[in-house]
Protein backbone atom coordinates (compact mmCIF):
# COMPACT_ATOMS: atom_id res chain seq x y z
CA UNK A 1 0.00 0.00 0.00
CA UNK A 2 2.74 2.39 1.00
CA UNK A 3 4.98 1.57 -1.98
CA UNK A 4 2.40 2.36 -4.68
CA UNK A 5 1.71 5.57 -2.79
CA UNK A 6 5.35 6.66 -2.86
CA UNK A 7 5.90 5.39 -6.43
CA UNK A 8 2.71 7.20 -7.39
CA UNK A 9 4.02 10.52 -6.10
CA UNK A 10 7.46 9.89 -7.60
CA UNK A 11 5.79 8.77 -10.83
CA UNK A 12 3.92 12.05 -10.71
CA UNK A 13 7.21 13.94 -10.72
CA UNK A 14 8.81 11.85 -13.47
CA UNK A 15 5.64 12.02 -15.48
CA UNK A 16 5.83 15.81 -15.37
CA UNK A 17 7.24 15.96 -18.89
CA UNK A 18 5.32 12.99 -20.31
CA UNK A 19 2.27 13.93 -22.26
CA UNK A 20 2.14 17.19 -20.40
CA UNK A 21 2.67 19.03 -23.60
CA UNK A 22 -0.88 19.20 -24.87
CA UNK A 23 -1.03 19.33 -28.66
CA UNK A 24 -2.59 22.56 -29.91
CA UNK A 25 -5.28 20.55 -31.68
CA UNK A 26 -5.95 18.59 -28.50
CA UNK A 27 -6.50 21.68 -26.40
CA UNK A 28 -8.60 23.36 -29.10
CA UNK A 29 -10.86 20.32 -29.41
CA UNK A 30 -11.28 20.05 -25.64
CA UNK A 31 -11.91 23.78 -25.37
CA UNK A 32 -14.56 23.79 -28.11
CA UNK A 33 -16.30 20.92 -26.34
CA UNK A 34 -16.08 22.83 -23.03
CA UNK A 35 -17.60 25.95 -24.63
CA UNK A 36 -20.53 23.94 -25.97
CA UNK A 37 -21.09 21.97 -22.78
CA UNK A 38 -21.11 24.99 -20.46
CA UNK A 39 -22.50 27.55 -22.92
CA UNK A 40 -19.42 29.75 -22.78
CA UNK A 41 -19.14 32.85 -25.01
CA UNK A 42 -16.29 35.39 -24.78
CA UNK A 43 -16.14 39.11 -25.48
CA UNK A 44 -13.79 38.83 -28.45
CA UNK A 45 -11.12 36.64 -30.08
CA UNK A 46 -8.46 37.98 -27.71
CA UNK A 47 -10.45 37.03 -24.60
CA UNK A 48 -11.20 33.62 -26.10
CA UNK A 49 -7.49 33.00 -26.83
CA UNK A 50 -6.64 33.97 -23.25
CA UNK A 51 -9.34 31.70 -21.83
CA UNK A 52 -8.12 28.84 -24.02
CA UNK A 53 -4.60 29.20 -22.65
CA UNK A 54 -5.99 29.17 -19.10
CA UNK A 55 -8.03 26.11 -20.06
CA UNK A 56 -4.96 24.27 -21.40
CA UNK A 57 -3.09 25.03 -18.17
CA UNK A 58 -6.05 23.68 -16.20
CA UNK A 59 -6.02 20.48 -18.26
CA UNK A 60 -2.41 19.95 -17.20
CA UNK A 61 -3.38 20.81 -13.63
CA UNK A 62 -6.23 18.26 -13.72
CA UNK A 63 -3.72 15.66 -14.91
CA UNK A 64 -1.43 16.49 -12.00
CA UNK A 65 -4.38 16.31 -9.60
CA UNK A 66 -5.29 12.91 -11.03
CA UNK A 67 -1.81 11.63 -10.30
CA UNK A 68 -1.84 13.06 -6.75
CA UNK A 69 -5.44 12.02 -6.08
CA UNK A 70 -5.98 8.66 -7.87
CA UNK A 71 -9.10 7.59 -5.90
CA UNK A 72 -11.06 10.50 -7.36
CA UNK A 73 -11.69 11.53 -10.96
CA UNK A 74 -10.33 14.89 -12.08
CA UNK A 75 -10.80 16.63 -15.41
CA UNK A 76 -12.77 19.38 -17.15
CA UNK A 77 -15.31 21.15 -14.93
CA UNK A 78 -17.33 24.34 -15.33
CA UNK A 79 -14.42 26.18 -13.71
CA UNK A 80 -11.83 25.04 -16.28
CA UNK A 81 -11.48 28.46 -17.93
CA UNK A 82 -10.64 30.21 -14.64
CA UNK A 83 -7.18 30.64 -13.17
CA UNK A 84 -6.81 29.21 -9.62
CA UNK A 85 -6.83 32.77 -8.28
CA UNK A 86 -10.02 33.73 -10.15
CA UNK A 87 -11.64 30.50 -8.93
CA UNK A 88 -10.63 31.20 -5.34
CA UNK A 89 -11.78 34.84 -5.42
CA UNK A 90 -15.17 34.12 -6.97
CA UNK A 91 -16.32 30.72 -5.71
CA UNK A 92 -14.94 30.21 -2.23
CA UNK A 93 -15.38 32.81 0.52
CA UNK A 94 -14.44 31.32 3.86
CA UNK A 95 -12.92 34.00 6.05
CA UNK A 96 -10.07 33.01 8.38
CA UNK A 97 -11.21 32.84 12.00
CA UNK A 98 -9.50 35.46 14.14
CA UNK A 99 -6.34 34.06 15.66
CA UNK A 100 -7.08 35.83 18.94
CA UNK A 101 -10.42 34.34 19.77
CA UNK A 102 -10.68 31.35 22.04
CA UNK A 103 -12.86 28.74 20.36
CA UNK A 104 -16.37 29.72 21.45
CA UNK A 105 -18.99 27.20 22.43
CA UNK A 106 -16.96 23.98 22.62
CA UNK A 107 -19.29 21.02 21.95
CA UNK A 108 -19.56 18.49 24.79
CA UNK A 109 -17.87 15.13 24.16
CA UNK A 110 -20.44 12.61 22.94
CA UNK A 111 -20.34 8.85 23.56
CA UNK A 112 -19.29 6.97 20.42
CA UNK A 113 -19.32 3.37 21.58
CA UNK A 114 -22.40 1.18 21.77
Amino acid at each position, binding site marked *: *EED*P*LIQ*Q*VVGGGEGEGEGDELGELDAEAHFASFERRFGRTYRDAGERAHRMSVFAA*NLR*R*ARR*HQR*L*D*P*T*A*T*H*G*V*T*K*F*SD*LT*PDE*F*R*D*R*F*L*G*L*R*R*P*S*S*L*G*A*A*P*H*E*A*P*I*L*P*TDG
Partner: protein
Amino acid sequence: LPDDFDWREHGAVGPVKDQGSCGSCWSFSTSGALEGAHFLATGKLEVLSEQQMVDCDHECDASESRACDSGCNGGLMTTAFSYLMKSGGLQSEKDYPYAGRENTCKFDKSKIVAQVKNFSVVPVNEDQIAANLVKHGPLAIGINAAYMQTYIGGVSCPFICGKHLDHGVLLVGYGSAGYAPIRFKEKPYWIIKNSWGENWGEKGYYKICRGPHDKNKCGVDSMVSTVTAIHTS
Protein backbone atom coordinates in the same frame (compact mmCIF):
# COMPACT_ATOMS: atom_id res chain seq x y z
CA LEU B 1 -21.92 4.93 15.61
CA PRO B 2 -23.46 3.44 12.43
CA ASP B 3 -20.92 2.38 9.78
CA ASP B 4 -22.67 4.52 7.17
CA PHE B 5 -24.97 7.49 7.65
CA ASP B 6 -26.57 9.97 5.23
CA TRP B 7 -29.00 12.71 6.26
CA ARG B 8 -30.26 12.92 2.68
CA GLU B 9 -31.98 9.58 3.26
CA HIS B 10 -33.84 11.08 6.25
CA GLY B 11 -35.10 14.17 4.44
CA ALA B 12 -32.91 16.61 6.36
CA VAL B 13 -31.03 18.06 3.38
CA GLY B 14 -32.41 20.65 0.98
CA PRO B 15 -31.68 20.92 -2.75
CA VAL B 16 -28.17 21.67 -4.03
CA LYS B 17 -27.84 25.42 -4.64
CA ASP B 18 -25.42 27.58 -6.62
CA GLN B 19 -23.61 30.51 -4.99
CA GLY B 20 -22.63 31.83 -8.44
CA SER B 21 -19.65 34.15 -8.77
CA CYS B 22 -19.81 35.40 -5.16
CA GLY B 23 -17.71 34.40 -2.15
CA SER B 24 -20.78 33.50 -0.10
CA CYS B 25 -20.03 29.81 0.56
CA TRP B 26 -20.16 30.56 4.32
CA SER B 27 -23.86 31.51 4.08
CA PHE B 28 -24.71 28.28 2.24
CA SER B 29 -22.88 26.21 4.83
CA THR B 30 -24.74 28.09 7.58
CA SER B 31 -28.18 27.82 5.97
CA GLY B 32 -27.66 24.11 5.24
CA ALA B 33 -26.81 23.38 8.88
CA LEU B 34 -29.84 25.35 10.10
CA GLU B 35 -32.13 23.63 7.54
CA GLY B 36 -31.06 20.30 9.04
CA ALA B 37 -31.40 21.48 12.64
CA HIS B 38 -34.84 22.97 11.91
CA PHE B 39 -35.88 19.66 10.34
CA LEU B 40 -34.79 17.78 13.48
CA ALA B 41 -36.65 20.29 15.70
CA THR B 42 -39.89 20.48 13.70
CA GLY B 43 -39.98 17.58 11.23
CA LYS B 44 -40.26 20.11 8.41
CA LEU B 45 -37.58 20.79 5.80
CA GLU B 46 -37.64 24.53 5.01
CA VAL B 47 -35.31 25.89 2.31
CA LEU B 48 -33.71 28.88 4.02
CA SER B 49 -32.30 32.19 2.77
CA GLU B 50 -28.59 32.84 2.20
CA GLN B 51 -29.31 36.32 0.80
CA GLN B 52 -30.48 37.57 4.19
CA MET B 53 -27.02 36.74 5.56
CA VAL B 54 -25.22 38.15 2.50
CA ASP B 55 -27.12 41.46 2.83
CA CYS B 56 -27.60 41.78 6.59
CA ASP B 57 -24.94 39.79 8.47
CA HIS B 58 -21.92 41.99 9.17
CA GLU B 59 -21.22 40.36 12.49
CA CYS B 60 -17.59 40.53 13.61
CA ASP B 61 -15.51 38.08 15.58
CA ALA B 62 -15.89 38.71 19.31
CA SER B 63 -12.14 39.02 19.64
CA GLU B 64 -11.24 40.82 16.43
CA SER B 65 -13.39 43.76 15.35
CA ARG B 66 -11.89 43.77 11.86
CA ALA B 67 -12.82 40.13 11.18
CA CYS B 68 -16.43 40.50 10.01
CA ASP B 69 -18.84 38.67 7.73
CA SER B 70 -19.07 40.61 4.47
CA GLY B 71 -21.34 39.18 1.80
CA CYS B 72 -19.53 38.12 -1.38
CA ASN B 73 -16.19 38.94 0.20
CA GLY B 74 -16.33 36.12 2.68
CA GLY B 75 -17.59 35.14 6.11
CA LEU B 76 -17.52 32.53 8.80
CA MET B 77 -20.25 30.08 9.80
CA THR B 78 -19.85 30.49 13.58
CA THR B 79 -20.08 34.29 13.22
CA ALA B 80 -23.16 33.81 11.05
CA PHE B 81 -24.75 31.65 13.77
CA SER B 82 -24.07 34.48 16.23
CA TYR B 83 -25.74 36.94 13.83
CA LEU B 84 -28.79 34.66 13.51
CA MET B 85 -29.11 34.39 17.30
CA LYS B 86 -29.04 38.20 17.56
CA SER B 87 -31.29 38.92 14.57
CA GLY B 88 -33.89 36.44 15.75
CA GLY B 89 -33.56 33.96 12.93
CA LEU B 90 -33.59 33.28 9.21
CA GLN B 91 -36.23 33.85 6.55
CA SER B 92 -37.07 31.33 3.84
CA GLU B 93 -35.44 31.30 0.42
CA LYS B 94 -38.88 31.99 -1.07
CA ASP B 95 -39.34 35.18 0.98
CA TYR B 96 -35.75 36.37 0.64
CA PRO B 97 -34.40 34.85 -2.61
CA TYR B 98 -30.72 34.56 -3.53
CA ALA B 99 -29.32 37.30 -5.80
CA GLY B 100 -25.62 36.34 -5.99
CA ARG B 101 -24.44 39.83 -4.99
CA GLU B 102 -24.71 42.00 -1.89
CA ASN B 103 -27.74 44.33 -1.68
CA THR B 104 -29.24 46.53 1.04
CA CYS B 105 -30.68 44.52 3.89
CA LYS B 106 -34.39 43.74 3.52
CA PHE B 107 -34.77 41.58 6.61
CA ASP B 108 -38.38 41.20 7.77
CA LYS B 109 -38.53 39.89 11.36
CA SER B 110 -42.17 38.90 10.92
CA LYS B 111 -41.13 36.37 8.29
CA ILE B 112 -38.59 34.42 10.31
CA VAL B 113 -38.91 30.69 9.63
CA ALA B 114 -36.03 29.14 11.57
CA GLN B 115 -34.35 30.22 14.81
CA VAL B 116 -30.98 29.28 16.25
CA LYS B 117 -31.12 27.98 19.82
CA ASN B 118 -27.36 27.59 20.11
CA PHE B 119 -24.29 26.40 18.25
CA SER B 120 -20.98 24.79 19.17
CA VAL B 121 -17.58 23.92 17.75
CA VAL B 122 -16.79 20.21 17.47
CA PRO B 123 -13.32 18.95 18.50
CA VAL B 124 -10.89 17.87 15.74
CA ASN B 125 -11.78 14.22 16.22
CA GLU B 126 -13.45 12.09 13.55
CA ASP B 127 -15.51 10.03 15.99
CA GLN B 128 -16.79 13.19 17.67
CA ILE B 129 -17.59 14.68 14.27
CA ALA B 130 -19.53 11.55 13.27
CA ALA B 131 -21.34 11.48 16.63
CA ASN B 132 -22.34 15.17 16.38
CA LEU B 133 -23.46 14.61 12.80
CA VAL B 134 -25.73 11.71 13.79
CA LYS B 135 -27.05 13.54 16.87
CA HIS B 136 -27.47 17.13 15.67
CA GLY B 137 -27.82 16.83 11.88
CA PRO B 138 -25.64 18.16 9.03
CA LEU B 139 -22.56 20.10 10.16
CA ALA B 140 -21.09 23.35 8.85
CA ILE B 141 -17.45 22.70 7.96
CA GLY B 142 -14.45 24.41 6.39
CA ILE B 143 -12.18 22.71 3.84
CA ASN B 144 -9.22 23.41 1.59
CA ALA B 145 -10.68 23.51 -1.95
CA ALA B 146 -7.39 23.10 -3.85
CA TYR B 147 -8.51 19.88 -5.59
CA MET B 148 -12.15 20.88 -6.05
CA GLN B 149 -11.74 23.05 -9.15
CA THR B 150 -10.92 19.92 -11.20
CA TYR B 151 -12.97 17.37 -9.22
CA ILE B 152 -15.47 15.27 -11.19
CA GLY B 153 -16.30 12.36 -8.86
CA GLY B 154 -15.09 9.51 -6.67
CA VAL B 155 -13.49 9.68 -3.24
CA SER B 156 -10.86 12.43 -3.15
CA CYS B 157 -7.84 11.49 -1.05
CA PRO B 158 -4.88 13.54 -2.26
CA PHE B 159 -1.40 12.41 -1.21
CA ILE B 160 -0.59 16.06 -0.56
CA CYS B 161 -3.18 18.67 0.44
CA GLY B 162 -2.89 21.91 2.40
CA LYS B 163 -4.87 22.31 5.60
CA HIS B 164 -5.51 26.04 5.45
CA LEU B 165 -9.28 26.42 4.98
CA ASP B 166 -10.74 28.54 2.18
CA HIS B 167 -14.20 27.08 1.51
CA GLY B 168 -17.34 26.52 3.61
CA VAL B 169 -19.49 23.46 2.88
CA LEU B 170 -21.95 21.11 4.60
CA LEU B 171 -21.15 17.65 5.98
CA VAL B 172 -24.28 15.52 5.45
CA GLY B 173 -23.05 11.97 6.00
CA TYR B 174 -20.30 9.41 5.80
CA GLY B 175 -19.64 6.04 4.16
CA SER B 176 -17.55 3.09 5.23
CA ALA B 177 -16.05 2.38 1.81
CA GLY B 178 -16.21 4.22 -1.47
CA TYR B 179 -15.30 3.72 -5.07
CA ALA B 180 -11.58 3.46 -5.74
CA PRO B 181 -9.56 2.05 -8.65
CA ILE B 182 -8.70 -1.64 -8.02
CA ARG B 183 -5.15 -0.95 -6.93
CA PHE B 184 -6.30 1.17 -3.99
CA LYS B 185 -8.15 -0.26 -1.05
CA GLU B 186 -11.64 1.13 -0.61
CA LYS B 187 -11.60 4.36 1.36
CA PRO B 188 -14.10 5.39 4.06
CA TYR B 189 -15.29 8.90 3.22
CA TRP B 190 -17.25 11.98 4.26
CA ILE B 191 -20.22 13.09 2.11
CA ILE B 192 -20.15 16.84 1.53
CA LYS B 193 -22.81 19.08 0.01
CA ASN B 194 -21.31 21.96 -1.98
CA SER B 195 -22.93 25.14 -3.32
CA TRP B 196 -21.72 25.13 -6.93
CA GLY B 197 -24.85 23.69 -8.53
CA GLU B 198 -25.74 20.14 -9.52
CA ASN B 199 -23.52 20.26 -12.61
CA TRP B 200 -20.37 20.09 -10.49
CA GLY B 201 -18.93 16.99 -8.77
CA GLU B 202 -21.33 14.13 -8.01
CA LYS B 203 -24.63 16.02 -8.59
CA GLY B 204 -23.28 18.85 -6.47
CA TYR B 205 -21.68 16.60 -3.83
CA TYR B 206 -18.06 15.88 -2.95
CA LYS B 207 -16.54 12.88 -1.22
CA ILE B 208 -13.30 13.04 0.71
CA CYS B 209 -11.57 10.24 2.56
CA ARG B 210 -11.55 9.89 6.33
CA GLY B 211 -10.34 7.26 8.80
CA PRO B 212 -7.21 6.46 10.78
CA HIS B 213 -4.84 6.69 7.78
CA ASP B 214 -6.41 9.82 6.29
CA LYS B 215 -7.30 12.05 9.26
CA ASN B 216 -8.14 15.70 8.63
CA LYS B 217 -7.49 15.43 4.88
CA CYS B 218 -7.44 18.96 3.35
CA GLY B 219 -8.33 20.30 6.82
CA VAL B 220 -11.82 18.77 6.70
CA ASP B 221 -11.89 17.94 10.43
CA SER B 222 -10.50 21.24 11.69
CA MET B 223 -13.43 23.66 11.49
CA VAL B 224 -16.66 21.82 12.33
CA SER B 225 -19.66 23.46 13.96
CA THR B 226 -23.09 22.21 14.87
CA VAL B 227 -26.27 24.22 15.43
CA THR B 228 -29.55 23.43 17.19
CA ALA B 229 -32.79 25.11 16.21
CA ILE B 230 -35.61 26.34 18.43
CA HIS B 231 -38.60 24.04 18.36
CA THR B 232 -41.59 25.87 16.94
CA SER B 233 -45.00 24.25 16.68
